[in-house]
């Protein structure tokens, strides 16, 4: 096995606020090859901030520190802004939660995809257009030419999210970070979008970080799962070994989901032990 695509060692993200310092991520370490890694946790567990820190998208008062944060041998903490801009959207990209807010509302889907493509690849307009249409077809939109000329408000949530995935994959990235890509979608549409994502990741041999609060979904989709609580990794598991989870937090997260096969009444409530976050 070659060197990992992404190495994160002791990642810390803190926000210095008037009321004190909030540490959102406190010492997260992992290595990612060309595989699917899931990060699971409740709101406020630091899972999204971990993803953002890797891309250098931590919002202003935030400070990112790490012993090591490298992408394909490039030190992301020492990289210049220019270098980061080239990487971001080019070799590493991110799919956000809600296509309604993350697509540009005043540009057609096609125009913003062409913009994203030409920001990273030297290509003529015609070539970019062709590449964009191919990508829209690859995410199984029924009529790529039509979607190309639509504005984001004219498409449904599922179509918007597919367009978003197409836009993020058009530059052939090596790493895709998906932050709750299906939480704003319906159950059935969710399956379709995941299937598309799954096929594309497998075909292109990308690394994927899948961030979600849904443990069941993540474990059925990813190869490996990191469970986060209070900015720390509680447990790392192979997706198949979820039943063998030892940490009480992981077990709690699993048990609090009602199951179709019947679940206990009342549902077990997640017990949070402040000592875990120490």
């Amino acid at each position, binding site marked *: 096995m070659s060197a990992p695509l992404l190495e994160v060692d002791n990642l810390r993200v803190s926000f210095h606020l008037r009321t004190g310092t909030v540490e959102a991520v406190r010492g997260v370490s992992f290595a990612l090859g060309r595989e699917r890694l899931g990060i699971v946790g*409740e709101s406020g567990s630091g899972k999204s901030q971990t993803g953002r820190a890797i891309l250098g998208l931590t919002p202003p008062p935030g400070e990112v520190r790490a012993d090591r944060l490298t992408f394909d041998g490039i030190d992301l903490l020492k990289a210049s802004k220019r270098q980061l801009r080239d990487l971001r959207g080019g070799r590493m990209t991110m799919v956000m939660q809600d296509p309604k807010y993350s697509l540009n509302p005043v540009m057609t889907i096609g125009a913003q995809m062409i913009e994203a493509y030409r920001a990273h690849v030297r290509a003529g307009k015609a070539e970019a257009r062709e590449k964009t249409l191919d990508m829209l077809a690859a995410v199984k939109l029924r009529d790529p030419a039509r979607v190309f000329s639509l504005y984001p408000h004219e498409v449904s949530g599922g179509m918007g999210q597919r367009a978003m995935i197409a836009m993020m994959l058009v530059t052939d990235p090596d790493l895709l970070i998906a932050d709750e890509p299906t939480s704003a979608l319906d*159950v059935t549409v969710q399956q379709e979008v995941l299937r598309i994502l799954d096929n594309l990741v497998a075909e292109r041999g990308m690394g994927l970080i899948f961030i979600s609060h849904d443990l069941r979904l993540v474990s059925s989709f990813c190869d490996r799962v990191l469970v986060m609580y209070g900015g720390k990794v509680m447990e790392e598991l192979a997706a198949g070994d979820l039943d063998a989870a030892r940490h009480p937090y992981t077990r709690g997260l699993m048990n609090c989901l009602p199951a179709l096969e019947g679940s206990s009444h009342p549902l077990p409530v997640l017990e949070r032990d402040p000592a875990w976050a120490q």
Partner: protein
Amino acid sequence: MTAMIEIEKLTVVFGSGSLRVAAVDDFTMRVDRGESFGLVGESGSGKSTVLRAVCGLAPAAGGSIAVDGKPVPTPRDRAFYSTVQMVFQDPYGSLHPRQTVDQILSEPLSIHRLGDQDRRIAAALGDVGLGPSFRFRYPHQLSGGQRQRVAIARALILEPKVLLLDEPTSALDASVQAEILNLLERLRAEHGLTYVLVSHDLAVVTHLCGRLIVMRNGKAVEETDAPRLRAGETASPYTRELMQATRGFTRASQTTE
């Protein structure tokens, strides 16, 4: 006579001409007193519109709705709202951002001219597991789960017989969802409430409800109950698809079942 809600051939239409959409089409449902009934489907299936039609928030173009044995008046009167109350999906959107919890809870009491506000508000907060310290906070000072508890308290404060729950947990984390589901279950037992729960999550519906209807494109696809679903007895392929989606992601090659 034990039916609490009877809906006969309900049709709800939005738009006209070429834009005419029948959001609910010829929908019939009967919910018994004290029962917990589920409506499942994807977005646009009309499941929320059924609830809104019962409440008078969506216009019924045809069919009839009766609550507690009486046809509902249009517009709905005060007696109706003291029988039926609704809890909405998004606790971030359904609470007034400039009102304290106390103001939010006292408004229905003032509208219905109920006295003894102080005691009622304290009791409603206690019911949903929030202490008196929450009374003078604003919604932005509460977490999602706490907001949903306030929304439930607001619905309960008029001591209704029926609660219409429109995706009460889908905006919440899995762990908070469990707390709210337990709360709803306890409240139903304590107050003898009738629930109609709308959700896209079959697991949530089967956890809380006995009988349920699967909806798609404004029509009922199948009426079934939790034990039959668990045994895998489904009449329609759509219900099976929903069940599969609830179990998590499956790669096309490894569809075992």
